[in-house]
């Protein structure tokens, strides 16, 4: 009840304005009736308002019978009355009655919106769309492998085994889809929230039993999904040897209702692994039980090496260790002495010699040899080698992507196994390795956008430059970082590092600047209030690029702060705006005859107490701006009328997907061609319904 009143109260201001606006053009009697209706609305009398609806309908009938135009207010009153309905069900019935009476576009839009935002209606729609999309997905994935021009089908002309392979692929894919068919979807999560909200708000609605059933069903499914997701996160962490995170997720899963058993086994394995790790770490902190003692003949020299190493003087370390090695080269402490000497050399600045000496020690089978080997293998030791390794790994991953596609997951494995099962070795041709089209496509994609992360190269390079900015390798590292950043699409950093190389080519700088400017232009498209700053930055810093030209144009077309722009088509659709109570414009400005003055598409702009008209030049081509100063009250009235018209236009605008054709909604099927990892495919399918939720991320 309270919710219904609130709805009606919220609806009141805009429609009170409408009523008053429409009534202003009617006679005084109608205005008096409108005043009464508003009074009844404010008193919250649904029954009286219901009578007002009948009264206005009768008045309209009477006016029609007298050859007059109807008041046009019956739909508004009906909508107003709907807002006062006591229950959700009554209100929905009243809103449907409003729509059945063919109201004006604004009332229709408002009534439709009220019906659409009802939680149960939204949930029902979400579930219906979800069911449709699941079925369509299964059908489409079944049909797709049989696409008439797919790699498999083309090869099937040469080898009939492959046709069987495609059929098996289709069946296998369908089996996997059916296996996952019942998975909790985003839409189901959202529907559950809407159902719960509705029951909290309207526990007495007639749909309550049905909604409660849906809540129970979806709630059970959601609990199972939360359990599965948490266990899966724990498993992923465990498999990545990230035992701390694995323990967190698995413990969390263990505490969930009905999830304990699923997490138990993995939790036990995690516990074991953690205990093993702790034991290993503890072991590494202790000396061996029977640490060797130096022989009496080498004791003093060994002690000297220890003292020099503890003191940390490089020359002392080199001298003591060399002395020890001269006299006791065959000692079991010789590798340790070599290690101390190598460290002394490194600390003295002889890094290359130190590295060679360490490589010798690493080949030794002793404890210190193993230790040095693991040191040399760590990226912190040789940062240039670490960059080399990261680049090698990156190249290898790119090549793997081009020839084998993305990571092989369970689904791909089943797909491949099904093909191999059906066609034996010949199927290899269709599973991607020798699919020339797929390889070419991926090569093209890899060339356009690096499919592999460059982050390791970047991190290693940045670390080297931070620690050793004047290293002899710095210039080379700057160049390599410029490449890595460019591949990663971070053109700003790429440009910065490229500028730091010894002989930067102006051509490449220009190319990087162009890419950076394009990226900024893209960002400016989504940045909301920040886009003006970005566009100005493009023009200021990259004035010679093509993006700068586009930015200049967008800046030119952009309305200034505080401006109200009324385009010509808005004026065409709302001739009332031309009247003296609004913009007070000569109607001839819109009559299509340029000789008597004609408004251009840009229309009029209200700003700073002025009315600016963009007019076609007469005679000759081009446009000019004519400015009229308005008194404060005229300006305020004009601006109010303009904003009202713009709001009505926004409210009643048809929100059509630009990708959807005019008659497309009557066609439930599509035919699609794709060029993908598995070659070229053309196949029919069932259209999916678009996810139109405004708060998608809240239910992911």
């Amino acid at each position, binding site marked *: 009840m309270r919710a219904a009143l609130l709805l009606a109260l919220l609806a009141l201001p805009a429609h009170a304005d409408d009523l008053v606006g429409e009534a202003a053009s009617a006679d005084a009697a109608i205005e008096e009736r409108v005043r009464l209706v508003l009074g009844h609305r404010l008193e919250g009398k649904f029954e009286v308002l219901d009578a007002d609806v009948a009264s206005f309908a009768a008045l309209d009938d009477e006016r029609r019978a007298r050859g007059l135009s109807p008041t046009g207010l019956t739909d508004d009153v009906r909508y107003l009355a709907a807002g006062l309905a006591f229950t959700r069900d009554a209100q929905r019935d009243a809103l449907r009655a409003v729509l059945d009476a063919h109201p004006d576009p604004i009332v229709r839009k408002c009534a439709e919106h009220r019906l659409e935002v009802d939680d149960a209606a939204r949930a029902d729609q979400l579930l219906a769309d979800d069911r449709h999309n699941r079925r369509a997905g299964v059908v489409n994935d079944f049909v797709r492998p049989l696409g008439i021009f797919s790699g498999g089908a083309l090869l099937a002309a040469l080898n009939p085994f492959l046709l069987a392979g495609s059929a098996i692929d289709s069946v296998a894919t369908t089996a996997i889809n059916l296996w996952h068919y019942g998975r909790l979807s985003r839409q189901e999560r959202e529907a559950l929230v809407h159902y719960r909200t509705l029951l909290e708000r309207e526990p007495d609605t007639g749909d309550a039993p049905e909604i409660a059933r849906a809540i129970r069903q979806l709630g059970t499914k959601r609990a199972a999904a939360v359990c599965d997701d948490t266990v899966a996160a724990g498993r992923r962490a465990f498999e990545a040897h990230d035992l701390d995170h694995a323990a967190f997720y698995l413990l969390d899963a263990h505490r969930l209702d009905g999830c304990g058993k699923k997490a138990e086994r993995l939790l036990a394995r995690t516990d074991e692994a953690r205990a093993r790790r702790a*034991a290993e770490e503890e072991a590494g902190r202790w000396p061996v039980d029977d640490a060797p003692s130096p022989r009496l003949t080498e004791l003093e020299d060994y002690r000297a090496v220890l003292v020099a190493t*503890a003191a940390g003087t490089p020359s002392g370390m080199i001298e003591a260790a060399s002395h020890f090695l001269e006299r006791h080269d065959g000692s079991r402490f010789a590798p340790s002495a070599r290690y101390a000497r190598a460290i002394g050399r490194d600390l003295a600045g002889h890094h290359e010699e130190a590295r060679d000496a360490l490589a010798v020690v690493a080949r030794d089978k002793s404890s210190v040899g193993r230790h040095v080997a693991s*040191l040399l293998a760590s990226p912190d030791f040789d940062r240039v080698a670490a960059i080399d390794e990261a680049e090698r790994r990156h190249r290898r991953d790119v090549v793997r992507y081009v020839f084998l596609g993305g990571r092989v997951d369970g689904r791909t494995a089943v797909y491949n196994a099904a093909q191999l099962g059906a066609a034996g070795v010949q199927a290899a041709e269709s599973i991607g390795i020798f699919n020339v089209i797929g390889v070419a496509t991926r090569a093209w994609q890899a060339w356009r956008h690096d499919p592999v992360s460059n982050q390791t190269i970047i991190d290693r390079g940045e670390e080297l430059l931070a620690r050793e900015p004047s290293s002899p390798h710095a210039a080379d590292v700057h160049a390599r970082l410029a490449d890595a950043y460019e591949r990663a699409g971070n053109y700003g950093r790429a440009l910065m590092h490229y500028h730091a190389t010894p002989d930067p080519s102006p051509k490449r700088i220009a190319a990087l600047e162009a890419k950076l400017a394009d990226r900024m232009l893209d960002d400016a498209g989504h940045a909301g209030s920040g886009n003006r700053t970005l566009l100005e930055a493009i023009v200021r810093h990259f004035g010679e690029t093509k993006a700068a030209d586009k930015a200049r144009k967008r800046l030119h077309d952009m309305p200034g702060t505080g401006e109200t722009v009324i385009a010509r088509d808005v004026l065409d659709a709302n001739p009332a705006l031309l009247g003296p109570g609004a913009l007070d414009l000569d109607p001839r400005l819109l009559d299509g005859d340029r000789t008597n003055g004609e408004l251009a598409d840009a229309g009029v702009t209200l700003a700073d107490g002025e009315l600016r008209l963009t007019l076609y030049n007469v005679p000759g081509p081009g446009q000019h701006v004519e400015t009229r100063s308005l008194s404060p009250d005229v300006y305020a009235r004009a601006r109010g009328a303009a904003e009202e018209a713009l709001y009505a236009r926004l409210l009643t605008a048809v929100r059509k997907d630009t990708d959807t054709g005019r008659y497309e909604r009557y066609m439930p099927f599509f035919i699609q061609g794709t060029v993908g990892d598995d070659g070229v495919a053309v196949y029919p399918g069932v259209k999916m319904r678009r996810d139109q939720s405004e708060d998608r991320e809240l239910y992911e």
Partner: protein
Amino acid sequence: MRTLAAALLLAAALASAPARAGDATGAYAPYEDLLEVLGDLTWHLRDDLYRFPPPKDPTGHDVYRLALSRLEHWEKRYPGRLRDVVGYARAEALERLGEYAKAADGYGQVAVEGSPLADQARTARERAGAFAQAAALPEEGPDVNATLGALRRKLDAWGRLVERWTGTPYETAALVEEERLERTAAMVVARNRRILEDGNLTAEHALRFLVQKHADSRNLPDHILRLGDLYADVARDYVEQHERPLAFDEDEFVQRADRALDMYRKVAAWDGAREKPEAQGRFAAFDAYKTSVLARYR
């Protein structure tokens, strides 16, 4: 009696028995030679801990903590063996870990032994003692002003040490302490900004000073994040203080929120910074907050 003594000795030996290496291999294997431990420690004694993070061994553990732990275990396993060397190295590790009083004690013990390291230990004891004195000064007072006064005095003491050890490996340790105290002072101001006169501005100045003065520090990204946190708190305060729709000014809020987001974004895009993932998380979280507030008031 002899049996009892033997049993007690056996029990003591069992109680203090070290963990066995078991089948640990590679970087986790127990060490055979003390030089292996000393070598790692010595290699990193001159590391610049102000500009760069503490060194790690191949297993990812802090070299100083690992060396300290290994040396302590050596002392337990082989008591008295190479005592001066182990004691000196242990003091070095403690000094690098900021335990100056314990380090001064350790150096002092070596200084009084007839060791070739005695002279060096005396110098080190003097240095570590001076550091320990500065470290022992209080950092807190009964109220904000007293706390800030205590921090000021402590900062002066560390400032003198920075001057005294400029150009040596010990300067960086003093700089680390100075930076820590300046950050503490800035955070005290930030926490108490509501009760201080011009609290927001003073807190901002304090954090900006930290960012500017310690531009070379390894903690610079963290300082920038703290400044972002302050801006974020100020934006949240604005929402709390203008909760009613007509009191809320979108531009005012956006201006405050964007200052926080700018700071977070700086670190979120900072390749190689260890705070990068944290900054990305904070940016996403605060951006979501901003979106939610704007949606609430539209």
